[in-house]
């Protein structure tokens, strides 16, 4: 992981729009059954939001454990898969495929090899229609640890920084993301005013 610099950022929470996230979530209708995977912690408002839909949400609360993973400690594919299965609570016997994966800003904080392995692991639990949502920092510095995100209504999210410090941002471009997110490719992206690029990824070669 990159070193932590001393320049503080605002620890306060801030409310912002997330057009691509709500575009994906608006696809959930009351007649279909959706499976959603959220790598972040459970929040009251997010649960309340999903209460209106016939869906299953996997709340993994595994951001910290995934960020701690390195290719040195998980040096084989089997070790990595075991660690992912444990962290995400996803095992091979999953009945349904996951339709929406919410990674929030996690990709910025993972070792590139770990990110690639995570996406490959998730792929076995996805279908052709699966969409991955993520925030990618574009500034030189980013908060030292992943933020906590809450869905507060049908258009806004609340971002809460967990750290006052900043760290170097990997600054992923689209080409790099295609490499690390394989077989998922960028479907849409929007640059937000706060310097965060919001991305939707879908499976390569599948057009929605």
């Amino acid at each position: 992981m990159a070193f932590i610099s001393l320049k503080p950022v605002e620890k306060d929470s801030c409310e912002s729009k997330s057009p691509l996230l709500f575009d994906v979530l608006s696809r959930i209708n009351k007649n279909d059954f959706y499976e959603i995977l959220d790598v972040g912690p459970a929040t009251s408002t997010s649960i309340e939001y999903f209460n209106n839909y016939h869906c299953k949400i996997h709340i993994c609360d595994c951001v910290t454990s995934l960020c701690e993973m390195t290719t040195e400690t998980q040096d084989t594919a089997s070790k990595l898969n075991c660690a992912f299965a444990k962290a995400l609570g996803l095992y091979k016997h999953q009945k349904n495929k996951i339709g929406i994966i919410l990674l929030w800003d996690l990709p910025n904080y993972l070792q590139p090899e770990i990110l690639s392995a995570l996406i490959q692991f998730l792929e076995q639990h996805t279908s052709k229609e699966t969409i991955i949502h993520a925030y990618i920092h574009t500034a030189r510095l980013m908060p030292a640890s992943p933020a906590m995100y809450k869905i507060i209504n049908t258009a806004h999210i609340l971002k809460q920084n967990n750290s006052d410090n900043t760290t170097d941002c990997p600054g992923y471009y689209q080409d790099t993301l295609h490499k690390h997110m394989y077989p998922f490719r960028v479907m849409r992206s929007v640059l937000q005013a706060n310097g965060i690029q919001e991305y939707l990824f879908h499976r390569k070669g599948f057009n929605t």
Partner: protein
Amino acid sequence: MIDMKQIKENVTNKINPQKKEESIKIERMDTKMTNSTKMVAAIGETIHIKGDVSGSESLVIHGHVEGNIDLKGHNVTIGKNGNVEANIIANNIIVEGKLDGDMNGNEKVIIKESGNVHGNIISPRVTLEDGALFKGSIEMEPRKIESVTQTSENKPEIPKEKPKRISA
């Protein structure tokens, strides 16, 4: 015959008519209450149960339970000091303590601020208070609630049909 109860009621109503209204309200609330809320059993803080728990009354757990808890139609509450390693089937489930297991709440599941849950939830309504810890999956079926409300809305029509059958 002199009905002492009636006299007493008349006197109290004259003195305090509001009291009568209150007592009626309480009575009405009481009739609305299901059997599940009328009788509540409790497992104390020092009690440690290993095995399955089933019954026909609601349960409050302050102690330690290892096993399955099956209280269909009734409520289960895990108190702040409660520690449960079990799958729970109940009408309403409230977690204030620690739970390691799955929950199937026919009406509602509530995880309070002090709650710490590791397991899967199936319920038409799930509420999680800020500060609560949860890891697992939540399967929500809002249509289940709609169907319940629809059937309850249809209920008043049933007595209208009954007299017709009798007259026929």
